[in-house]
Structures are given as structure tokens and as C-alpha cells.
């Protein structure tokens, strides 16, 4: 006996060790850099203090007393740069040339202003960018994950340095800053940043206080962080009238600010990142990285008119520039380079116009900067061994060389005076310093993708071990010897190993010798051998016992496994990952066709005994009837197969492009309806109505199905909900889309609760639907037949196509008590034949509606296409199963069917407008039905998971149908089979056959869950292995790491859903047995 609790325990245990493996790997792969907790201070040995200017300064005399920093979120260089190629009457893109004041300043006072590209470091999320902009250091990939829980910065940063220097900072805008720097600002006006739909609250809030606060002059540093441009991009994309409105607003803001600037103030206007063509950011494409920087001061900034159009500055350069300009120490871990152009002018020196003087000034700044970088590298070198020895030594030499050159030069200047040769030497020296700082930055960039090899290998080993154990249980189960002493010992031994690996990775850490990894692999190999031996034993045993039941893996299983391995191996090649949408399509279609061929063969082999010549018309005298031939079961299979794969192929129209896939046509379906312009209103209407029709079709089909099988009779809460609440929720989804499609001006004028009401009604309906089905998972209706009223209802019911009643003759005899039955005739139960299927379908439909809502109107047809093609595939599968099995047989789930379904959903991921890249996340989903302002981040994260991993969720929900569907013998199924079934003979029992043997049902579902787990984890193992192997690959952060992250989250989602579905089916089974006991 193998009770359900043990199965649940094994499944949970397997999921746990899988997740531990993923965690260990993640820990090693996405490693944070080591934070050096030193702070720069004023008195350092390298600051010369040779200048005798009256202006005070810490390392260097300060040029400016005050600074105004205006951060314009997502201000791209393209927005700032005035493009003069457009003629007066040309239609300019909405984001172009909307900041004419910048151009005006650049023309009017070229020595007081400069404009350049301001390259961000990926990941381009605001929090990471703010960290980089204030500490001058480079972020690591893992930092991206902490965007939802912003934490205080403890590393040395410019804000703290300014406060130490006694400067007062005033802050306005995005409240992310307060999370990073709590208690640092002496006056602050924060505004919530999370609601991306809200274009104006933050900006108008800032604008209200901006000028009065600027004029108060009680500040030394003034920071304002505008969000409007970024939110506008998220909501409408860059090329939208709202963007030009926003940018013009910014233009007038900048004009007003420059008017009130004092002489001793410098103004920085910049974007923290750019945006893609769709207005999103987060990734590392050029569009996202290319922010713009504009610097202005009423004082002369630079001596030579810089050619900044061609220059590219890094965002880390802001910190040293600002520090040295304001005369504060450069933060300790800064890796940026002070912008040389800003230091070539010294207003106090009389010889400011001499070129040598200018270069000398630049060298002074760069030298301080280089000293600071050197100090940082040295202390980093002490605590971590990651620096490549050779590069580090080379950089050190370069620095020493430059220092000695400087000394020589100074003495030469004293002795020989300022000659021409000194100037060339100086320029060379300047280049040396620049090279040193750039080289250090590059070296750090390389090593900060630092990997913990021990954890990576441990994670991979644990994962591999888990797959083996999973395989073992899957195979052992087939041989019906599920829990044996050996399997218990395997469980205990692997728990110990996994537990140790966990401790090792998270607590013991660096103390481990890599040699231990090999020890682990040895343990692994031993386990592997035990598993193989065990399975061979089992096979032999079963061979001896029942020779007839023992089979080699069948043809289709071998091919399915082969395709799965091909797919997994594809993760190791960057091109296959880039074109994964095509690859999954190809493999999924191959598997669908494999199943079609298999069904075709089994259909015809079945009738081997019958003379198929009669059906194929060997009698040539028989009249040739094309319709008869075309409606032959073989042709029906072909039609179903073709329809299935054609619908599946249509999913490709919903794909979005990733950056590497050029050339590629962007789909129009992911664009929100509200972005359609006035001219496209016809298209907008068509798309809206098509989407709504698809949604309606989806719900209608499942409703018709349930009605056909009599599951929508009666008045229990579940049935009533399915009857009325589900269509109501569907209508609400349609209305929600309609509201969201309103023009932005109209939409914004609505109060917040009206914008989200419909979606919230849908959430409430769906939650109540789920609660209903959990409380009473049966959609049955009992009709008692009275003794004195023998109206032969059963006959009527049978003859009616609407109702398939189930007669409980034998069951009643078996189960009813010996007491007098109230009614003589057995009661008629409507929907008994599809009791399990209906419950599963109910859940699928309910969650399906939720997915429709979250994926948005554009992708609605794709869900319909996917569900219809999955449905057709299940029909093909059941035709095959019913060809092979006897009617009473309870068949186990086929591995190849699970692989096919898995491959189909892998492609469905791409069919729902996703790609395995961070820029392609559909952030809008997090705001469906909520107006922003979340207290915690669980809810938006959950909505994002539902949106992104809709495919995995859908697969997990649909899988149980693979078990139940073949027993239904639907009409399509009977058309596809030559064999006649009991349905025609009037003995149809539907999936109720599973009730006869509850133990068997449990085992089948246990096995199904194991198969799903095995499939997902093999895929994940491939992604992990590829990420681990290619950790030094050029494209690792663009291709392999995102692929791994998406796969890991998707796999965990699949695990959860398939486990929950297992529990759900058990729940249905339990309440069914309670139901039957009533009689």
C-alpha cells in the first residue's frame, strides 16, 4: 500500500531538494561584489594643496559652492539632442527636438554648457542607477533583484561625503531616494514612484515646490528627480503626443531653473537610463543605456569648447566630477573618471588661457582621481583574490610610471620653464592617467561578474542528483514497487547530501576546498550506480514475474526523450537561445506530428484483424464516394492534426522580438490599445472586438462542454458560480479592456477607483470561484425518481443529447445501507461521467480568465489558439490511448505526451509575447486592477508571475486532462477511431471509472506530477549548465543568465502548479467518495 500522504511527502521532498539546488546555484552564479567599507577622508597623503587660491576645498579647491542636480528618469540622449536635419514642415517624432532651450543654451554660451551621451551600466533599473550615480561604482547583476526592496546604501557615496563637508542637501521627487538615503536630506518633498500610469503627480509636485525652494537659498546641493518621462515611456512609448507634452514641460522647467541660478552654482540635468522603442528599460540594449547629460553654469565651465557630440561619458563619471568641483573627497569605491573638460579652466589663475595651464589643471584632477582609484583597488585586492595578477600589475606599473613622469615634469618646469616639449609631455601624462582609470574600471567590470565555482558546481550536482532521484521514483513506480527500504535509504542519504550542500553553500562558504566538490561527485556516482542497479533489478524481477507486461521504452518515448535532450542541449548555444521561439515551435510541431502518426498507426494496426480492404475500397466495382473516403477516420485524424498544428503555428504572430533577432517584425498585439492614435481607431476597434470575441469563445466553449455533459444542472454554489459568476467575470474583463482603451486624456480624468473597478471585480469573482470549487468540487446534480411516479426519467435523459445520466444500480446495491431506501428506483446523477474532468476544466477556465485579464487584450487570441490546439492535441492523444487500451483499463500517463505538452507550453511562452530577456517583461500586468501604491511588493510580483509564466501555469492546469480525457470518448474521438467503444453500446461510464480504484488514481497522478517535475527540471538543468559553463562568455548577461533566471522561476511555478493540481484531484476524489456514500 502506498498511501496518499507518503506520495505528497515524496513530491514535497523532491520539490524541496530541487529548490535547494536552484538556490545554491543561484548563490554561486549571481554573486554580489564585495563591498569595501572604507570612507574617503579629507586628509590624504596624495592631495598636494599647492594651490593658494582663496577658495577652500578638500582634495582640490572647489570651483562651485552649490550644485543643482536634476534627474529626469529615462531622459535619453535622443531627447536632449536637437536634430537640425528636420525641416520646418517635417513631421518630427514626438520625442525629438522637444527641449529647444538646451540647444539655445549650447549656442548662446558654449563655454558655459555641455551636452554628451551618458552611458548607463546595466541593469538599467532606477534603483541600480541611483546606486551607481552616487557611489561611482559598478552594479552587479544580482542587484537587479533587490529593486522591490530598496535598502540603504552603506558604501561610501557622494551624498555622505557632501554631508560630512557640511553641505545641506534639499531633495524633491522620487521617494526611492529616501529608501537609499534615509535621514540625509535636511528638507525633502518625496512623492510615490511606483505607479507608472501616473504621469503627473510626481512632476507637478516637484514643480510646485521647485522654484520657491530654489529661491530660498538655504541649500548647498539641490536634487530633483522627475519621473514623468519614464512613466510616459512605460505607458505610451516614446513616440506619443504625451511624450512631447512632457518634454516641453521639462523644457520650461529647465529654462526657469537656469534663470534663478547664481554664479557659483552648477546645474546637472541628466537621465539615469534610456528607454527602448517600446519605452521600457531594465536591460542592456543600446537604447536603454544611452542616457543624456547636460551641464550648465552661469560661470565659465570649460576653457576649450568641447566637442561633446562625439564623446561618450559613463554614468560613474558623475561622482568624481561633482566631488572635485564641489571640493569634497571622491567616494572611496568610485571607479569613474572626472570629466577632463570641466577641469581645464581655472578662473583664479591669471594664465588661465594658456594651454599648458589648462592641461596642468586637468592633470591635477585626474591625478587625485587616479590616487583614489589606486587606493580602492589596493584595499579590494587585499580582501579578495579575484583580480587577475597580470592586469593588476600592469595597471600598477602604469600608475607608477605616470607618477614619476609627473615628478620629472615638475622639476623640468622649474628648471627649464614652460616650453613646448613640456606641453606634449603633459598631454601624454594626462593620457596616462586617463588610461589608468579606464583600465581599472574595465578590470573591475570583468571580475565583478565573479562566480563562486564551488556553489555553482554544488548546485549543479544537487540538481543532477535530484533529477536522478526523480527518475528513479518515476521508473520505480512503473514497476509498482514504490516505497521500499532502498528508496527510503536513497531519500535519507540524498537528504543528508543536499542538506550538507546547503550548509556548505550558505554558511560554511569559502572554507571549503574545491576538492570537496569532487568528493561530492563521487558520492553522486555511487548513488547513480545504486539507482541503475536497483532499476535493473526491478526490471528483471518484473520480467520474471509477468513477462507480458514488461516492455522496452516505446518508439515515441525514445523520440520524445531525444527531442527533449536536443532542446536542452540547445541551451548551450547562444543562437539556439536567441531563436528559441522558432526552436520550440519546430520541436513542438515534431512531437505533435509524432503523436498524429502514432495515432494513425495504432488506429490502423488495431483493425489488422478486420479486413481493411473493405474500408479502403479494394472492390473496384463499388461506387467511388469521395465524401465517404474523406470522412474516414484516418482522414479525420489528419484534419485534427492539421488544424491543431495550424492553430499552433498561428501563435508565432504574437511573438515579440528580442534585440539579437534582427531582422524581425514587431508584433502589434503587445501594444496597449490606448496607444493607438486617432487615425488608427478602426484598427483599434477591430482589435478590441476580436480580443473580446476570443475571450468570449474561450469561456463559451468550456460552458457548452459542461452543459453537454450535464454538469451545469442543479443549484449548488459551485454550479451556480460556474453558470453565472464566470460569465459575469468575463464580461468584466471585456469592460476593463474597454476602459483601458479610452484615450489617455479621458482615462486620466476618471477617478482612480473607476479605472480599476472592473479588474478588481474580476479578481473577487475569480477568488470566489476558486473558493467554491475548493469547498465543493463536484458539479453533480442528483435527481431522485419517485416510486409512485415512474415517469422513466432515465430513458428520457438518455435519449436527450443534453444530459448523460449515470445509473447507480450496482453502486447502490453495494453501498446503500440495508435500511429502507426512500426511493425505489436508483437516482439519476447528472454529470457523473465527467465528474473529474469538469472540476479540472472549471479550474482551467477560471484561471484562464485571470490570464486573459493579466495578459491584456492584445494577447487574448493567443490564449484561445493555445487552448484550442492543446485541446486538439489531447483529443489526438486520447484517440491513441483508446485505440490501445480496453475500455475498462485505467491507463497510465505517457511520458511522450507530457513532453509534447511541455514543449507546446514552452512555445506558448513565446506566443504570449514574452522573451527570455528582462526588457521584454510586460510591466503593465503589475498594475492591472491596482492604481499603484502597493504596501508590499508581493501582489505586483504575483501578478507579474501570472503574466510572465502564464504558459507554465496553463500547462500545470491542463496536465490532469491527459489522464481523464481518454476515458470520455468524445465525439471527435469516436470519429477518429475505427474501433467502436462502449459508448455506443450504452455502457459509457466516462472518467468515473477512476473512482473504482482510488489507489490507482492516486498513483497515476503521483506519476504525472513526477513526469512534469522531471520534464521541467531537465530543461532547467540545461539552462543552469549552460549558464555555468558560459559564465565567461561574452553574452552571458544578455543571453544565458536571463535564460537561466526565467527558466528557474518558470520551473518553480510549474512545480507549484502541478503539485497543487495533484492535491486538487485528490480533493475531488475524496469528496466524490463522500458523495457516493450518501446512497
Amino acid at each position, binding site marked *: 500500500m502506498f498511501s496518499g500522504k507518503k506520495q505528497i511527502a515524496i513530491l514535497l521532498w523532491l520539490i524541496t531538494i530541487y529548490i535547494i539546488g536552484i538556490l545554491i546555484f543561484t548563490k554561486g552564479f549571481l554573486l554580489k561584489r564585495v563591498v569595501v567599507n572604507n570612507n574617503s577622508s579629507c586628509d590624504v597623503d596624495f592631495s598636494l594643496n599647492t594651490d593658494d587660491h582663496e577658495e577652500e576645498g578638500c582634495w582640490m579647491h572647489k570651483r562651485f559652492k552649490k550644485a543643482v542636480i536634476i534627474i529626469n528618469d529615462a531622459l535619453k540622449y535622443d531627447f536632449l539632442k536637437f536634430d537640425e536635419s528636420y525641416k520646418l514642415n517635417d513631421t518630427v517624432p514626438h520625442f525629438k527636438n522637444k527641449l529647444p532651450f538646451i540647444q539655445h543654451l549650447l549656442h548662446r554660451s558654449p563655454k558655459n554648457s555641455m551636452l554628451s551621451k551618458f552611458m548607463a551600466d546595466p541593469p538599467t533599473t532606477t534603483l541600480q542607477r541611483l546606486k551607481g550615480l552616487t557611489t561611482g561604482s559598478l552594479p552587479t547583476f544580482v542587484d537587479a533583484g533587490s529593486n522591490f526592496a530598496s535598502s540603504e546604501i552603506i558604501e561610501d557615496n557622494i551624498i555622505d561625503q557632501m554631508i560630512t563637508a557640511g553641505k545641506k542637501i534639499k531633495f524633491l521627487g522620487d521617494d526611492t531616494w529616501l529608501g537609499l538615503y534615509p535621514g540625509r536630506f535636511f528638507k525633502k518633498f518625496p512623492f510615490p514612484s511606483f505607479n507608472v500610469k501616473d504621469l503627473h503627480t510626481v512632476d507637478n509636485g516637484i514643480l510646485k515646490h521647485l522654484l520657491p525652494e530654489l529661491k530660498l537659498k538655504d541649500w548647498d546641493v539641490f536634487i530633483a528627480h522627475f519621473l514623468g518621462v519614464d512613466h510616459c515611456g512605460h505607458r505610451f512609448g516614446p513616440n506619443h503626443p504625451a511624450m512631447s507634452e512632457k518634454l516641453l514641460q521639462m523644457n520650461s522647467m529647465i529654462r526657469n531653473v537656469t534663470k534663478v541660478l547664481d554664479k557659483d552654482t552648477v546645474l546637472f540635468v541628466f537621465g539615469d537610463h534610456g528607454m527602448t522603442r517600446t519605452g521600457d528599460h531594465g536591460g542592456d540594449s543600446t537604447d536603454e543605456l544611452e542616457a543624456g547629460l547636460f551641464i550648465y553654469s552661469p560661470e565659465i565651465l570649460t576653457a576649450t569648447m568641447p566637442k561633446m557630440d562625439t564623446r561618450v561619458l559613463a554614468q560613474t563619471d558623475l561622482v568624481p566630477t561633482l566631488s572635485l568641483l564641489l571640493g569634497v573627497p571622491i567616494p572611496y569605491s568610485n571607479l569613474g573618471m572626472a570629466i577632463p573638460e570641466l577641469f581645464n579652466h581655472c578662473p583664479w589663475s591669471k594664465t588661465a588661457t594658456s594651454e599648458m595651464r589648462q592641461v596642468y589643471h586637468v592633470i591635477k584632477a585626474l591625478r587625485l582621481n587616479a590616487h583614489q582609484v589606486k587606493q580602492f583597488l589596493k584595499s579590494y585586492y587585499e580582501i579578495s583574490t579575484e583580480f587577475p595578477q597580470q592586469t593588476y600589475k600592469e595597471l600598477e606599473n602604469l600608475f607608477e610610471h605616470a607618477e614619476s613622469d609627473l615628478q620629472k615634469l615638475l622639476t623640468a618646469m622649474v628648471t627649464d620653464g614652460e616650453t613646448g616639449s613640456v606641453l606634449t609631455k603633459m598631454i601624454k601624462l594626462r593620457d596616462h592617467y586617463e588610461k589608468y582609470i579606464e583600465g581599472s574600471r574595465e578590470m573591475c567590470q570583468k571580475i565583478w561578474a565573479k562566480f563562486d565555482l564551488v556553489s555553482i558546481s554544488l548546485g549543479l550536482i544537487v540538481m543532477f542528483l535530484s533529477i536522478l532521484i526523480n527518475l528513479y521514483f518515476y521508473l520505480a513506480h512503473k514497476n509498482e514497487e514504490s516505497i521500499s527500504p532502498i528508496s527510503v535509504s536513497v531519500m535519507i542519504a540524498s537528504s543528508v547530501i543536499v542538506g550538507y550542500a546547503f550548509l556548505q553553500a550558505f554558511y560554511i562558504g569559502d572554507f571549503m576546498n574545491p576538492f570537496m566538490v569532487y568528493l561530492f561527485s563521487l558520492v553522486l556516482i555511487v548513488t547513480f550506480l545504486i539507482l541503475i542497479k536497483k532499476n535493473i533489478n526491478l526490471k528483471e524481477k518484473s520480467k520474471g514475474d509477468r513477462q507480458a507486461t514488461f516492455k522496452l521504452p516505446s518508439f515515441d518515448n525514445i523520440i520524445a526523450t531525444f527531442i527533449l535532450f536536443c532542446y536542452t542541449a540547445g541551451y548551450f548555444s547562444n*543562437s*539556439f537561445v536567441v531563436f528559441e521561439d522558432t526552436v520550440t515551435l*519546430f520541436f513542438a*510541431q515534431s512531437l505533435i*506530428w509524432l503523436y498524429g502518426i502514432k495515432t494513425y498507426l495504432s488506429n490502423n494496426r488495431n483493425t489488422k484483424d478486420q479486413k481493411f480492404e473493405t474500408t479502403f475500397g479494394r472492390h473496384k466495382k463499388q461506387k467511388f464516394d469521395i465524401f465517404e473516403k474523406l470522412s474516414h477516420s484516418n482522414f479525420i485524424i489528419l484534419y485534427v492534426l492539421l488544424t491543431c498544428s*495550424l492553430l499552433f*503555428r498561428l501563435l*508565432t504572430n504574437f511573438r515579440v522580438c528580442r534585440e539579437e533577432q534582427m531582422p524581425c517584425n514587431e508584433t502589434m498585439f503587445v501594444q496597449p490599445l490606448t496607444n493607438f492614435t486617432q487615425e488608427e481607431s478602426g484598427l483599434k476597434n477591430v482589435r478590441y472586438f476580436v480580443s473580446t470575441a476570443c475571450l468570449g469563445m474561450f469561456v463559451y466553449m468550456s460552458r457548452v462542454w459542461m452543459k453537454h455533459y450535464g454538469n451545469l444542472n442543479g443549484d449548488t454554489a459551485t454550479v451556480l458560480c460556474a453558470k453565472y459568476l464566470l460569465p459575469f467575470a468575463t464580461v468584466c474583463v471585456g469592460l476593463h479592456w474597454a476602459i483601458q482603451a479610452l484615450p489617455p486624456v479621458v482615462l486620466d480624468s476618471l477617478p482612480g477607483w473607476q479605472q480599476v473597478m472592473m479588474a478588481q471585480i474580476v479578481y473577487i469573482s475569480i477568488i470566489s470561484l476558486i473558493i467554491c470549487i475548493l469547498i465543493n468540487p463536484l458539479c453533480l446534480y442528483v435527481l431522485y425518481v419517485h416510486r409512485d411516479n415512474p415517469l422513466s426519467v432515465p430513458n428520457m435523459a438518455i435519449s436527450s443529447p443534453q444530459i448523460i445520466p449515470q445509473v447507480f444500480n450496482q453502486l447502490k446495491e453495494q453501498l446503500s445501507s440495508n435500511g429502507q431506501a426512500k426511493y425505489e428506483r436508483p437516482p439519476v446523477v447528472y454529470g457523473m461521467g465527467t465528474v473529474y474532468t469538469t472540476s479540472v476544466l472549471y479550474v482551467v477556465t477560471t484561471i484562464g480568465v485571470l490570464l486573459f485579464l493579466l495578459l491584456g487584450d492584445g494577447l487574448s487570441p493567443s490564449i484561445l489558439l493555445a487552448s484550442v490546439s492543446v485541446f486538439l492535441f489531447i483529443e489526438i492523444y486520447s484517440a491513441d490511448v483508446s485505440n490501445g487500451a480496453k475500455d475498462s483499463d485505467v491507463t497510465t500517463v505517457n511520458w511522450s505526451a507530457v513532453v509534447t505538452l511541455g514543449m507546446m507550453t514552452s512555445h506558448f511562452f513565446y506566443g504570449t509575447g514574452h522573451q527570455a530577456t528582462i526588457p521584454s517583461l510586460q510591466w503593465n500586468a503589475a498594475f492591472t486592477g491596482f492604481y499603484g501604491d502597493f504596501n508590499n511588493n508581493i501582489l505586483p510580483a504575483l501578478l507579474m508571475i501570472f503574466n510572465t509564466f502564464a504558459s507554465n501555469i496553463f500547462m500545470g492546469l491542463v496536465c490532469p486532462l491527459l489522464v481523464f480525457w481518454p476515458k470520455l470518448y468524445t465525439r471527435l474521438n469516436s470519429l477518429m477511431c475505427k474501433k467502436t467503444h462502449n459508448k455506443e453500446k450504452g455502457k459509457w461510464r466516462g472518467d468515473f471509472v477512476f473512482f473504482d480504484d482510488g489507489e490507482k488514481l492516486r498513483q497515476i497522478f503521483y506519476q504525472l506530477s513526477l513526469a512534469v517535475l522531471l520534464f521541467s527540471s531537465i530543461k532547467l538543468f540545461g539552462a543552469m549548465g549552460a549558464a555555468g559553463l558560459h559564465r565567461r562568455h561574452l553574452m552571458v548577461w544578455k543571453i544565458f543568465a536571463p535564460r537561466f533566471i526565467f527558466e528557474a522561476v518558470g520551473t518553480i511555478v510549474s512545480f507549484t502548479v502541478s503539485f497543487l493540481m495533484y492535491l486538487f484531484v485528490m480533493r475531488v476524489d475524496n469528496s466524490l467518495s463522500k458523495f457516493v456514500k450518501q446512497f
Partner: protein
Amino acid sequence: MAAPIQQQIASKQTIKLIVLGNVIKSISCILLLFIAKITNSRLSLTDSSLQAIKMDIFCISGLELLTNFLNKEKVQFKLIDWAKCVILMVASCVFYYVVAVVFGAPFLQHTNETFHLAILLTVTTVLPCCLALGTDIGNWVQVFVLNSYEVGGPLICYITSIMAVLGAWVGAFPIPLDWDRPWQIWPISCVIGNLIGYSGGLLLSSLYLLYRYRLLNKFKLT
């Protein structure tokens, strides 16, 4: 050997002829792949793919018809059978085209190339089967579904056509790779895969045929 006892065995001469024909066909198939290099013309798959595929189609169908013509024990064809064959082949072209599109071939671009591939697939699979099995569906079911084929032409066409389709399927694998080779462009790699699969199938099936033939003869003697 699970072959039915009443299985027909082709005569020794026919077997020899079939094997010889197969070897010639498969060698010429391989030669077709390298024809541009041999003749120094621009008729390679990478330079002018459509012309090259057309040439392949003509050569293979010509060879198939020729070997069938030389075979004495061939299936008898009437005029109506030829007509049926042509209809079947046209249908299979359309079928292969649909399958290629469904598997991910571009729908609106490269229609010409896809159609050429469909014709080539038809020529390497349906045409030999038509010639060997005739137009009687019963024969086809016998071979492709029940796997009981006569040692001779049907066996050859069974193995060859499956190999040809598999070859084209495998040929699609390198398309997404970023090697930037000229043969990675759709449908050239599939054509190459198909031709290799076809010629490999011919050779393999010839060997298998000889092996089976020897076994059967032994069985006969004893």
C-alpha cells in the same frame, strides 16, 4: 524473422538490378551536391538555389523513372494509374508545403523556395513509393502501417522515404546557428539533409535488402 511465409521474393536478377540502381542513384545524388565544384558552373545550391533544386528534382525523378523502366518485375501501370500518381504527387506537394510552413518556414516570404523543397521531398518519397507500390492504397497500408513488405522494391522505398524525410527534418537544425554560412539559408540545409538522407537510405536499404535476401535464400534451401 517475422516475415510472412507467403512473402514474395523477387528474383535474383531483379535484386541485383535494384541494388545496382540504388548505388547509381545514391552516388549521383551525392554528385549533385558537389556539381558546382565539379563542373565549375554556378549551379551550386548556395549560389542559385532554385536552379539547383530544380536540377536535383529533374535528375532524381529521371533516375527513378529510368530504373523503374529497366526493372522487369515492376508494378503494371495503366494510364489511369499514371493520372492517379500525378494527382497524388500534386497533393503531396501541397501537403509538404503546409507541413513546412507549420514547422516554422516563413509563410509569406520564400514561398518559391519552400515549394521547391516540397517538390523535392515529393520526388524523393512519394515518387519511388508510387513506382514501387502502385496506386493501390492497400499496398501502401501494408508497407507503411503494418510493416509487412515484400523483399524488393517496397522495402527499398519504405526505408528510403523515411530516411529522406528524417534527413530534411534534421537539416533544419543548423538554421538558427550564427555561423553565417551560405548553406544555412532556408531551405538549403533541408535540401542537403533530404538528399543525404535519401542517398543514405538507398545505400542502407540496399545492404539490408541483400542481407534479407541471403537469409531468405538460406531458409529456402534448408
